[in-house]
C-alpha cells in the first residue's frame, strides 16, 4: 500500500521533542526538568506526559523560586502538581534570602545573578543532576540560535560556545564524566508562534497572566510592571494605574514588562503576536543590561 503520509510541522516538532525527552530518560541516571511555570514550561510538561504515558514522569521538575515570581505563578504551579501528580523540587538561594535581595534595591543584574544563576547552581549541585532539561528556544535570542539541543556543561556548569560538540541527525552524544552535565533543550526548534499554536490546539493550561486583564501597573525603568505585592517601594506603588495588560513572558514581577492589550483568548493573543513589531524578550529587563548579555549569562551558567 502506498499512500502519501506526512506530518504537519507541529506534529513533527512534537515527535522530535518527545524523542529528545525519551533519549534523556534512557541515557542519564539523574535527570531533572526545569519548570518555570511559563508557557514554554507548560508545553514541555505536556510533551513529557505524552512521552512517558501511561507511566508517570521518570524525572522530577525543578523550580528556582526567586521569591519574586508573580503570586499567581506559584498558585498555578502547585495546582499543576496536584492535577498531574509529578515530583516538584523548589529551591530558593538561602544566602540570597538572608541578604534580602530585592530587584528594586539591588537591581536586575545582582538579583538575577544571586537568586537565579547562583540559586540554580546550588539546586543543581545539591541534586547532583546529570541532565537538566530546559525550555529555551533557538528563536528567542541570537546566542541561543547556536546552542546544541544536548549542550555540554563542565563541572562548574559553564558553557563553552566555541567548543561545542557537533550534533548531527537526531543522534545525541550523552557521554559525560562524573560531575559534568548536559543541558537539554527539547523545544529548540519551536518558535513563539508554534508554542502558542500548540497550546491552542492541545488546550494546555497556562497562567491567566498571559491573558489581558485589568491590573495595577506602574512605569519602572522604561517598562510597565505590575504591582503584585507591597514589596514594591511605596513611592512607586503610589503611581499605580489600572490598565488592561498582559504578559508575553513570565518571570520575576519587577523584571517582567507588561504590554497593553485587549487579548483575552488564545486566538486573540496569537493575532496580537503576529501583528507585533517587538520580540518577546523585549519585555525582559535582563537582556538589555549589556550587549551580548545573554551570551555572557549563559557562559556563567544561566539558562
Amino acid at each position: 500500500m502506498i499512500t502519501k503520509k506526512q506530518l504537519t510541522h507541529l506534529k513533527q516538532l512534537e515527535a522530535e521533542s518527545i524523542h529528545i525527552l525519551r533519549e534523556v530518560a534512557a541515557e542519564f541516571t539523574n535527570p531533572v526538568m526545569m519548570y518555570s511555570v511559563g508557557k514554554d514550561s507548560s508545553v514541555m510538561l505536556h510533551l513529557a506526559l505524552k512521552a512517558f504515558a501511561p507511566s508517570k514522569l521518570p524525572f522530577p521538575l525543578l523550580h528556582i523560586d526567586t521569591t519574586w515570581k508573580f503570586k499567581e505563578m506559584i498558585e498555578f504551579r502547585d495546582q499543576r502538581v496536584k492535577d498531574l501528580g509529578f515530583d516538584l523540587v523548589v529551591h530558593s538561594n538561602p544566602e540570597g534570602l538572608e541578604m534580602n535581595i530585592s530587584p528594586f534595591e539591588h537591581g536586575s543584574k545582582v538579583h538575577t545573578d544571586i537568586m537565579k544563576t547562583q540559586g540554580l547552581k546550588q539546586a543543581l549541585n545539591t541534586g547532583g543532576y546529570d541532565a537538566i532539561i530546559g525550555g529555551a528556544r533557538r528563536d528567542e535570542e541570537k546566542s541561543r540560535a547556536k546552542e546544541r539541543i544536548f549542550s555540554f556543561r563542565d563541572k562548574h556548569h559553564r558553557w563553552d560556545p566555541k567548543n561545542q560538540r557537533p550534533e548531527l541527525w537526531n543522534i545525541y552524544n550523552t557521554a559525560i564524566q562524573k560531575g559534568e552535565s548536559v543541558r537539554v533543550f527539547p523545544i529548540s526548534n519551536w518558535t513563539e508562534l508554534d508554542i502558542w499554536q500548540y497550546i491552542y490546539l492541545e488546550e494546555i493550561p497556562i497562567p491567566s497572566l498571559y491573558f489581558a486583564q485589568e491590573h495595577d501597573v506602574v512605569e519602572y525603568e522604561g517598562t510597565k510592571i505590575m504591582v503584585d505585592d507591597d514589596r514594591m517601594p511605596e513611592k512607586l506603588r503610589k503611581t499605580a494605574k489600572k490598565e488592561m495588560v498582559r504578559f508575553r513572558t513570565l518571570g520575576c514581577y519587577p523584571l517582567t514588562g507588561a504590554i497593553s492589550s485587549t487579548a483575552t483568548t488564545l486566538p486573540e493573543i496569537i493575532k496580537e503576536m503576529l501583528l507585533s513589531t517587538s520580540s518577546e524578550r523585549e519585555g525582559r529587563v535582563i537582556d538589555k543590561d549589556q550587549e551580548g548579555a545573554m551570551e555572557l549569562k549563559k557562559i556563567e551558567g544561566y539558562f
Partner: protein
Amino acid sequence: MDIINYLKEHENKDMLRFLTCGSVDDGKSTLIGRMLYDSKMIFDDQLAAAESESKKYGTTGEKIDMALLVDGLQSEREQGITIDVAYRFFATENRKFIIADTPGHEQYTRNMVTGASTADVAIILIDARKGILTQTRRHSFIVNLLGIEHVIVAINKMDLVDFSEDVFNEIKQAYTELADELGIKNTYYLPVSALDGDNVVDQSAHTPWYTGLPLLGLLDSMDISKEPKEEDFRFPVQYVNRPNLDFRGFCGTIAAGSVKVGDEITVLPSGKSTKVKSIINAGDITEDNRNVTTTEAFAPTAITITTEDEIDISRGDMLVHTKNMPSVSNNLKVMLVWMDENPMQIEKVYDIKRATSIVSGSFEHINYKVDINTYKRKQVNSLGLNDIASCRMVLTRPIAADSYSDNRLTGSFIVIDRITNNTVGAGMIVGVSRRNTEAISKKYTAAEKELNTYIRKYFPEWDCKAI
C-alpha cells in the same frame, strides 16, 4: 484575515529544513538576514540592536548590515564571520522553515556537515563575479555526501555584474556539469542580490530575463517528497516503559515505513519474532486520557509498541517487519567524516552511536580519502580534522544495517571518543562489508604487528587488515 482561519492554515503547514552554503564574502548571512527581514521575521527591537551594532562592526556603510541580524555570538560579530552552525526560523503561508546557517571555509567543514545532516534542501551561494570556486566544489560534495537531493544555486551579487544574463548562464552551465559529475538529482538556478533584495522575496525589476520564482517563492513551493516506494519499517527501540507488571512498552520514533497492530515483527540483531499487540501514538495522549491507543502509525511519529510475546527487547534493538529485514553485520563499509583535532587512529576503540544503539568498534582500514576540492581519491594511513574517507568499520556486536542512501536515520552514526567523550566523527553506512569477520581474539607478536604495519603502509592495494 480571520484569525481562526489563519490558525487552521498554520496548523496544516509542512516543514522544510535547508542549509545555506557559502563563505562570508558570498553574502550568506546577508541573504538570510534579508529573508528574515523581508518576510517580517525581524522585530523592531532586534532591528534597532542591529542598527546600533552596524555602526560599530558593520561593513555596509549607511545600510543596515543584514549579517548582524543573524551572526549570533559576540566573538563572531567582532570578527565578521560565521563560525558555527546557527539555526533560524521563519514561516510562509505553506511552510515552516528551519535554516541551518553554517560557515563556508574549509576549516569549518565539520560544521557544514553538521548543518547538512538534517537538511532537505541546500542553497549554494556563488559570487557572480567569481563563478565556481574550489569552495563551490567542496560545498557541493558535502551536500551530496549528506544525501541532500535538492540544490538551489543562488548566483549572488548580480548587481556587481550589471544583472548580466550571460554571466548567469555561464555559471549555470558550469554548475550543471558539476552537478552531473556528483550526481546531484535536482538543481534550481537563481540570479540574486542579497544586499538589495533582488529575487529574494520579490521578483527583481533588474532581471526581466529571469522568469522563475524568487528564492522565497521557490522554497515555499518546491516539491521535496521522495519518490513513492514501499518503505521498510524501521523502529529503533529507545526506551522501555514499564510502569507495572502488566505493561511493557517499547518507546521510540519510527525511522521509516509504517506499522499496524497484528504485524509480524522481528527484533534485530537477536532475530526473535513476535506480533504487535498495541500501539500508542504519543501525540494522541492527553492530560485526561493517558491510555489512548491507535491501530497504525508511520514515520516520523513517536510511538510506544507492546508485543504479543514476552521476548527480550531492549534499548538499541531494531524492530522491523519480519517480511522485510535489513542485513545484520558487525563489519561495515562506511564514509567517515573526521571532526576532531586529534587524528583518527586505526584500531583504536571508539563508541559508535547509531540511532539508539551504542556499540564499541574500530576502523580497521582506510580504503581511501577523498580530496573534497578535486574529488580525487588518495591512499592515507590516518585521518585528521575535516578529512572524509571510505573506511571499514568493525563493531564488537552486529547491528541491523541500512545504507545511508536508503535510510538517513538508520544508516548514520556518530563516533565518540571513550576518553574525552567528544563527538569525534560522523559516518554513513555504505554497505555491509563482504568480509564478515568476528572480533579478533588472537594475540600477535611484536614482529607480526610490525610486519602488518609495514604491509599496510607500503602495499595499501593489498587491502590488508589491521591487527
